[in-house]
């Protein structure tokens, strides 16, 4: 019963040249959002849903400024290749294969012209397995 985080990366994949969402028609945007909701509903129905969140695009990179100094806040270490983590699904599934299957489905979300956006998802195992050291 492992949990996996499906991280939705936008703009981090040079192979995928998808028109930015800002250039989609309102109905294309609506169809995309409906699809995300539908995935959430489908995962709840299949007993695999844990959490889903979208992330605002205007994040900041923050680090410790040193003793007595304020936090260091920047746009990021590499602003020219900036990629955006747009959100995630957290799922509880039988196997990694099932997680990949769901990720691929999420990646088929409709975009410009109703065509799949082929968004790349990063699939990461959440460390929640029973602990054994013996």
């Amino acid at each position, binding site marked *: 019963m492992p949990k996996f985080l499906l991280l939705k990366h936008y703009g981090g994949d040079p192979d995928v040249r998808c028109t930015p969402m800002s250039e989609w028609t309102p109905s294309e945007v609506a169809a995309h959002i409906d699809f995300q909701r539908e995935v959430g509903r489908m995962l709840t129905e*299949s007993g695999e849903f844990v959490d889903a969140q979208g992330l605002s695009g205007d994040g900041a990179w923050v680090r410790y400024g040193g003793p007595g100094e304020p936090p260091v806040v920047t746009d990021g270490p590499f602003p020219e290749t900036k990629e955006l983590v747009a959100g995630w699904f957290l799922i509880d599934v039988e196997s990694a294969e099932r997680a990949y299957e769901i990720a691929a489905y999420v990646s088929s979300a409709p975009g410009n012209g109703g065509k799949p956006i082929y968004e790349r998802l990063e699939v990461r195992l959440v*460390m929640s397995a*029973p602990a054994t050291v013996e």
Partner: protein
Amino acid sequence: MTASVEDLLRDLAPQVLAALTRRSGDFAAAEDAVQEALLEAARRWPAGVPDDPTAWLVRVAGRKLVDAVRSDAARRRREQLVRSRAVPAGPAPQTDDTLLLLLLCCHPSLTPTSAVALTLRAVGGLRTAEIAAAFLVPEATMAQRISRAKRTVAAAGGRFAPPTDGERARRLALVLRVLYLIFNEGYGSGGRVDLVAEVIRLTRGLSALLPDDPEVAGLLALMLLNDARRPARTDAHGRLVPLAEQDRSRWDRAEVVEGVALLQRALRQDRRGEYQIQAAIAAIHDDAASAEETDWPQILAWYDELLLLTDTPVVRLSRAVSLAEVDGPLVALRSIERLDPSVPRLAAVRAHLAEMAGDRVAAARLFTDAARIASSVPEREHLLRRAAAVG
């Protein structure tokens, strides 16, 4: 709610479900109705437990079932059926009912995840919210997982009836596997909902029904002999303490004694199985007054026997640890040379053996590798500490 009401409800749940399933012939609907009745009892009983709690639950659950059937026009015909069948006089024969429910909840058509959830609710009498909390998923997800499991069993032709003699052993093995999974889940995660106590209770019940089955006794013994060490398994800061460093005075002696007695009785039947063998290994650890006094040759002999029954990479890894204690780390390393690199904990065991062999550089690197691919946070922290200690 008081613990005694809670315990009472969990004990009665399978009897009530069996009675209702028998009456209605519809396991899925009966199971929903019992869940509702349990919720109602949980609200009302703390103010006073009814004189005949079983009858109360059967009556309330029966009413919920009729309501559910009635509200569903398509099921109108079944309402007739429910009403036409007589309410059983007195409590239903409990003995075989719980076993039949376990067999149904661990039906071969179900994935382990689904079987675990359904077993905890239908036989364990746990509420959906509690099971959801134990597995850290939303209640709606767990509710769906359980109703899908019931649909799957129904579609696969699962019935509330004894399996054929030819099927029985295989089906019982699935039940033991599911109980073992629940135990492992609870043993490793600790804290949330006490799945360990719950599954020991269920396995105890099964052992009372099948006192002559050595593997059922072996599984219960295995659980008790491992659970005995639980108080010493984590320190005051919540860190995992490996077996060799545990304060053995904190082990639960009563559980050890009970586990050993169960195991000895099972082994006398001379029908060995994987749970008895694992329990025997746990018993040898529990029997050692200190890590140094552990009888490693005997543990190794048991692992050799286990390997004959189930030759899996996990068994080979565990065997290698005992082999190292008997014949040295280099022999042990050679014994796992050909294991698939993707086997979980391979790096951790190799790191341990490298450290034993005095190869600190390799040990530090392997402990770091093992930490990177660990599948739980306490395990990763443990491995990182060992990497730092050896490096």
